[in-house]
């Protein structure tokens, strides 16, 4: 009897292992093991097409990337421009849209909210096709609108100057509604009391926005920006369909450069080293995001 009670306590204490272990084992197998594999590969030189094994090169790949690879620098610059030109714009526009929609209390808000969701949950490849259609220099809608306004046509994704802004514009279309949706949910979950107090004190609409709404909304804003920042590094589908990284390298962000090194040039070691630089960068943002999530529960009205 006593032994069985001891067994019961043991069981109660460690039963979680049986629940959690299968998922953890699978994740170790399909994520952690491959990542370690790629870390090791990044210390070697290996072309998957040419015959021959892995050649140990130590940190050569990383040194090459950081100090000798001009294309890496270009990709880094494009990545920076891409992030700087999309995430802040999405945030500003998204906040504006959220503040407009926040005032709508009629039934139509349900339809509007559903429309906001679509761009971010649509198959990204199809978003790319949509914009390829819009940007088509011969029959696209955008050049048609320019013509209506009496402006000359633009070779949107075809010229090195306009290609990156074109991809960014499509990205902004795809993700601004996501920002708006999150910020709207955040607005709707704000407590009512500070507003009542502000009305009693005779605060203006601008003051309410500046001193109450924005500070209260800041945790939601931080989460929204961090998520977008993290995901922007991983942009692939849109670039693949719209430009394939070109013309030249004008739209080749780091993520795309890594893909091309691995699967067009087949330099798996070098590409692994590139991908590890990406992992480190994204992990830093992810850790900040997780830290924000851990330090406080952030509430937003769902749906």
């Amino acid at each position, binding site marked *: 009897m006593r032994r069985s009670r001891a067994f019961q306590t043991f069981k109660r204490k460690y039963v979680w292992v049986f629940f959690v272990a299968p998922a953890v084992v699978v*994740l170790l197998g399909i994520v952690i093991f491959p990542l370690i594999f790629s870390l090791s590969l990044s210390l070697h030189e290996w072309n998957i097409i040419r015959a021959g094994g892995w050649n140990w090169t130590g940190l050569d790949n990383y040194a090459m990337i950081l100090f000798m690879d001009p294309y890496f620098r270009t990709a880094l610059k494009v990545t920076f421009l891409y992030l700087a030109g999309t995430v802040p714009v999405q945030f500003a526009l998204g906040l504006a849209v959220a503040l407009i929609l926040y005032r709508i209390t009629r039934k139509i808000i349900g339809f509007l909210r559903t429309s906001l969701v679509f761009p971010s949950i649509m*198959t990204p490849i199809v978003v790319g096709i949509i914009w390829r259609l819009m940007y088509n220099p011969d029959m696209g809608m955008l050049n048609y609108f320019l013509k209506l306004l009496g402006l000359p046509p633009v070779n949107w994704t075809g010229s090195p100057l306009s290609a990156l802004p074109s991809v960014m514009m499509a990205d902004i279309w795809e993700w601004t509604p996501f920002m708006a*949706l999150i910020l709207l949910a955040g607005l709707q979950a704000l407590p009512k009391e500070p507003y009542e107090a502000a009305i009693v004190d005779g605060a203006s609409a601008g003051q309410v926005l500046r001193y109450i709404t924005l500070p209260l909304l800041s945790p939601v804003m931080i989460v929204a920006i961090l998520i977008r920042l993290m995901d922007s590094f991983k942009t692939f589908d849109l670039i693949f369909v719209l430009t394939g990284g070109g013309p030249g390298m004008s739209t080749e962000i780091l*993520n795309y450069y890594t893909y091309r090194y691995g699967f067009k040039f087949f330099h798996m070691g070098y590409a692994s080293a590139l991908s590890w630089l990406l992992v480190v960068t994204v992990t830093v943002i992810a850790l900040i995001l997780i830290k924000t999530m851990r330090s406080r529960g952030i509430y937003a009205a769902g749906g």
Partner: protein
Amino acid sequence: MGFITGKIKKIIFVVLTVIVFGIILFPPFVLFLTSVKTDIDALAFPPKWIFKPTIKNYVQIFQTSPFLRYILNSLIVASLNTFIALVLGSLAAYGLARYTFKGSENISFWILSIRMMPPVAAIIPLYIIMKNLHILDTPWCLVLIYLTFNLPFTVWMMKGFFEDVPREIEESALIDGCSEFDVFRKIALPLVSPGLAATAILVFIFSWNEFLFALILTGTRATTLPVGIILYMKETGINWGYMTAGGILALIPVVIFTMLVQKHLVKGLTLGALK
């Protein structure tokens, strides 16, 4: 005076709202419009607004290209992946939500951080591993690999749903002599079934939409829908009819499913960062 400014303000808001949603809805509308045009109408400039719609593209895409196979491949991959992610994920989520042990929070956040990894980082080693296992270009390969993002997502979502359910019912069942696993299966799981359904739908959509892994890990046999659609974009030119019709067909399940999970979308899209 105040009445008039109020009215002007209201009109401005309505106009702004219409503009915003015009911008959101117009591009997909153009996709649809092109998909029901003949090849000649589709290439016309200025674009034709009035034309005789045709379903030619929707019929021919099935007749002259393996579009049905792309759909079936996508369905197989997405359904199997959803099933496995849900089984493994809800078990783990229950364990993490109900048993607070040393490091349980760390495990939870470790799992969440996996969801945030850039897929490009995993694709090189996974390609080599799958090649050596000889399962490249099979649905099984994608079923397994989509777990890299869908399993952490499921764990994280379901953990939230389990935490929202009071544990008293489960505790009384345990005292009555039910085994832990029975409590999970017969009591806890039915209680979170709406959350389970929402998670399943989101996981399905993520698999359905995935492109990068499918592009690299499939060749000719296991081609999924997004990769299949891209094949209509050739060096010699783009088959706009097929591309747009294929795009619309790919979006249909996504649109229907999205409407079903409205309530959980903010939570889902922010990985539970916002509750």
